[in-house]
């Protein structure tokens, strides 16, 4: 009885694990994000966090207005660059 149960478990595991291999090639059955877009999204989030943190540092008095303006300008310039790259990639995907 135990051996039968083990054989059934083995069969079930084998069928479950190899099911994706029985699909035609190029059909893994799942959507995968574009790594370039994912990378830019992550950089965008991190940059927005930096912008927020700089504002909070200014509100807490850690940054003078002048230093904050300089940092904020630089960070926003970097964020705009990321947004432009993102737009470009998404446009490219739509065309493709």
């Amino acid at each position, binding site marked *: 009885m135990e*051996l039968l149960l083990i054989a059934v478990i083995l069969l079930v595991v084998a069928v479950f694990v190899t099911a994706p291999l029985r699909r035609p*090639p190029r059909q893994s059955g799942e959507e995968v994000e574009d790594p370039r877009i994912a990378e830019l999204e992550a950089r965008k989030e991190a940059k927005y966090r930096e912008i927020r943190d700089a504002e909070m*540092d200014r509100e*807490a008095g850690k940054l003078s207005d002048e230093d904050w303006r300089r940092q904020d300008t630089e960070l926003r310039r970097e964020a705009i660059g990321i947004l432009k790259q993102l737009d470009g990639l998404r446009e490219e995907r739509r065309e493709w």
Partner: protein
Amino acid sequence: MIVLGAACVILALLAALYAAGAALAGTGGDRRWVVSSRRAVYAVAALLTAAVVIVEAAFLRSDFSFRVVAEHSSTTTPTGYKLTAMWSSQGGSLLLWAWVLSLASSAVLYATRSRLREIVPWATAVLMGFGAFFCGLMLFAGPDANPFARLDPAPAEGVGLTPLLRHPAMVIHPPMLYSGYVFFTIPFAFAIGALITRRLDASWIRSTRRFALIAWTFLTIGVALGARWSYSELGWGGYWAWDPVENASLMPWLLGTAFLHSIMIQERRGMLKVWNASLIVAACSFALLGTFMVRSGILDSIHAFGASTVGPPILFLIACVVLGSAALIVSRLDDLRSEKRIDSLFSREAIFLVNNLLLVGLCAVIFWGTFFPLVSEAITGTRSSVGPPFFNRLVTPLAILLVLFTGIGPLVAWRRISIGVAWRIFRLPVAAAVAAAVLLVAFTDARGEPWALALFTFAAFALAALAQEFAKGVAARRALAGGSVPGALLALVSRNRRRYGGYMVHAGIGVLLIGVAASATFQTSRDLFLSPGESASVGDYEVRYVEPTQSVSQSEDRLTLGGVLEVSSGGERFATLYPSRNYYSSRDTDPSSPVRGFFEGEATSEVGRRDGLGGDFWTAMQPDLTRLDPVIERTDRRLAGLAERLPMDDPRAQVQLAALQGSAIRAIASRYTEEGPPANFRVNVNPLVTWIWLGWLLALCGALIALWPTAEARRRRVADVYAARLARDLSRA
């Protein structure tokens, strides 16, 4: 069921090997192999879950055909401890490791099923490499390592659970500690994948940071529970002995802490890539080292489970991890070059770097002290011992500096802090530190303890700095959106969970170290030898031994001899404490002296303790049994003589003999309270020791807040707001 359980482990090994192979096949681009490998990981988790259920069911049934059950449980072990006895054994703890790894791997691979496309297959291969290794250990490292080793014939009764482990903290301490170790393999595996694919970028950072924080949180819980158990159960009155296995859990914690800080620098400035890769490799290696030290018995420790066969294979695994990772990092040095430099020495990046150096320095000191006995034995043939004085001497100054920087970091802005505003930011925390120092010197004994005074002063600075951060944040929030102080605080923390969760962790560590410094430096300790009715002074307290107590628990085969202590201070009653000593029957007892064997077998202390925010009054006792020696010897002679006359193979005779032994134990216990012999009492007054547990809880809350995911909608709203602002700025420019 043993065959079924063993088959589950064998199938798990095969599935883990398949998962690793399929994942590597998937790196060629065919996603079907990647999906198949992920399913194999789920199968490993399901199979090992079944294996765990089978073992636990065996414990509950007291099925002594399972060697692991026979050696770590008995019919009289309470049900709760039966369920947790699994991880007191070699085989059971290896099964726990592999099971937690499979569950964690399944969760992580499910969460990243549509992300990190290039990295995930390599990470899967690494994780399942670990999984196959631990399954292989269970199957091939001998019967001790096999949770499904059979005993034939099965004994009628088990040995029982080690009495020291019959404590609630021990129920959860090993799973939390192992979870911490296991979760460090996750960011390690993703780091290896990122190095191989040369994708050490922002999306890798985002995923890895979260996994590392989860590992750190579990390890924090595990370490805290171990310290709490030591303080409550071991009868020596301390919470940290610099035991090798304690140190083994602290080292990955320190490295994980360093990683969590320096990864923020990489996220913002693209710096410290080599450092971060090395840190996560080191954290995982030390997590494996912790497993090696617990399971190999190579170093003397309360955790030592005797010499075993799993030590060399685990050491081999560690060597592969370290050497392979180092080679990979060296081969990717060009990709790991920093993109930017530190703008200013007075910036948060620079402070974090100093913080990292202190944490790694602490780890190095602890590593040297822990392994020096092995090194000295290898070189000189003699194993030298390294005890608490070594660690305290070197760790204390580093810990004090760490507390200081715990306060400086939050005060300083990223990139640079304007010099003109620096004094405005620092003046309140500096004032708090100076005030604390003056008060301590004027009104306490701290003036005679420079290290403790320095720590208290810097901790006051850090806590004031953090309070200032919260106060300014709440004020800014109220200026922006109005509302009450509690409402503004809630909104502030929920909208900036990483920042303020991190501040709470810092505050918790500061509070914890205050408790450590106070309880270690200003402890009053006395060993007393009192007869009933006698009193003694301990510091400002008067301690009177009122009377002895006794109890017998048949269900737990336990005899408890204790005492009632009345503690007063300034003539007022302070506390009544009930310390005791538990004695457990053992199957290894010499049949010629069953009662003596009871008292010379395993014993545990139940401490008497009165907790308070200002400090604990702690006591443990050791009854003086010499007055009972004649009674014990007489009883043993009678029982041994009776045993010789009884037929050994008659079960009814054995039951009667056991009943007589039980009666004899109860009679001796009654004699103990009638005669009231003196007892040894260790009495400790530990100032502020409760702050250690409170600090730990605060740090844990901070970690959970930092971990808690923000709502996706909120993230999109914020992103949209900033996108709109950026668009407006761009149109104006």
